[in-house]
């Protein structure tokens, strides 16, 4: 055999090109084949509510005592089958805390008693820059295009990084089987429960928005909590924010919470 260096390189180059294009073609083929199994298509519900950035404005001035929040908490926990576990392993979707705990950045020692001694409703803030999403190793928690920070419990491996990442304590781990602490039948048979070993939190009622309903706590509040599109200047939330003084929890962290408090 007598091959020149030149002819060898020619053949080698052509073979490499042929092989690589073959591999690329295979990859695109398999990608389209894997993309969908269902022969049908998907679309959004006809009655679904849409927004660029869902946000909540809580008018705490109109809640006179901690008892005023009770129906809201009940409505939320009933709608999502949230158990009540009577120890420090309780599940929190919507809960109350003091001003000092809710707004540690507000360091006014001599704040008036009405604001200082009141209870404040806390829930997942659905941040614009959610730290929980950044730390989740399985993408079990993620930000949707409408600003809601959602959970896919199927993917959650229970590592609790998100609980460490969340500066608002909005996430709870199921140390125990939640069904043991729920009545049978569960309060809302149309909604699943969670299982032992997953983290859960408020979802801004994404499943209710998808069928044209407002979140459970907003509905139960009778207008004291507003919910709407922060990106729309004419929305109820933007109007309320334009007319009232509002604060958010721990703004210095830069997470950009989506829950505003009128105080």
């Amino acid at each position, binding site marked *: 055999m007598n091959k020149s260096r030149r002819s060898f390189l020619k053949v080698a180059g052509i073979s490499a090109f042929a092989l690589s294009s073959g591999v690329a073609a295979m990859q695109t083929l398999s990608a389209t084949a894997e993309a969908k199994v269902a*022969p*049908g298509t998907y679309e959004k519900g006809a009655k679904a509510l849409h927004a660029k950035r869902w946000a909540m404005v809580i008018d705490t001035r109109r809640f006179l005592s901690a008892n005023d929040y009770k129906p809201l908490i009940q409505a939320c926990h009933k709608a999502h089958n949230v158990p009540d576990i009577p120890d420090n392993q309780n599940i929190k979707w919507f809960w109350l805390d003091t001003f000092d705990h809710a707004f540690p950045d507000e360091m006014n020692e001599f704040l008036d008693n009405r604001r200082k001694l009141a209870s404040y409703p806390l829930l997942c803030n659905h941040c614009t820059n959610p730290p929980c999403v950044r730390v989740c190793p399985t993408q079990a928690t993620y930000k949707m295009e409408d600003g809601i920070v959602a959970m896919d419990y199927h993917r959650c491996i229970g590592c609790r990084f998100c609980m460490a990442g969340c500066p608002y304590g909005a996430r709870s781990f199921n140390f125990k089987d939640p069904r043991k602490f729920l009545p049978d039948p569960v309060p809302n048979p149309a909604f699943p429960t969670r*299982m032992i070993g997953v983290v859960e939190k408020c979802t801004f009622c*994404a499943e209710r928005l998808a069928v044209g309903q407002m979140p459970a706590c907003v509905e139960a509040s009778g207008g004291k909590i507003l919910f709407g599109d922060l990106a729309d200047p004419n929305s109820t939330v933007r109007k309320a924010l334009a007319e009232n003084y509002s604060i958010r929890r721990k703004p210095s962290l830069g997470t950009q919470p989506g829950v505003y408090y009128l105080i």
Partner: protein
Amino acid sequence: MYNAKAVTIGIIIFVILFTSPFWASLLGKSYKETGISLPKNEKECVETTDFMRNKHMQLLNEWRDEALRNENRVYVASNGKKWAISLQNTCLKCHTDYKEFCDKCHVANSVDPYCWTCHLIPQGSTK
């Protein structure tokens, strides 16, 4: 061949033992259908029976991702019919009998899906 008799008998015994599963299956029970009971009021599932039988798990996976991540909570089937994407509220509306429908095949095939640790099986058919 040295010790031909013993070697031949040994080979025959080996072959019989090696192929014994085939003989056992010939003698044993014949294949039986699982005998699942289909929903009585509905004739048609979301897609064809064949598709549902082979791929319902992939379909459910896809439904989950579309509904939870892309907010696409309506499935338009290949025949144009629209379905709300929900295992608990759509699938189980017709397939109400967990024991006679889901479990029959899952037990026969030794699969143990853990859907029901979170999703609720319909009332009246406890696990």
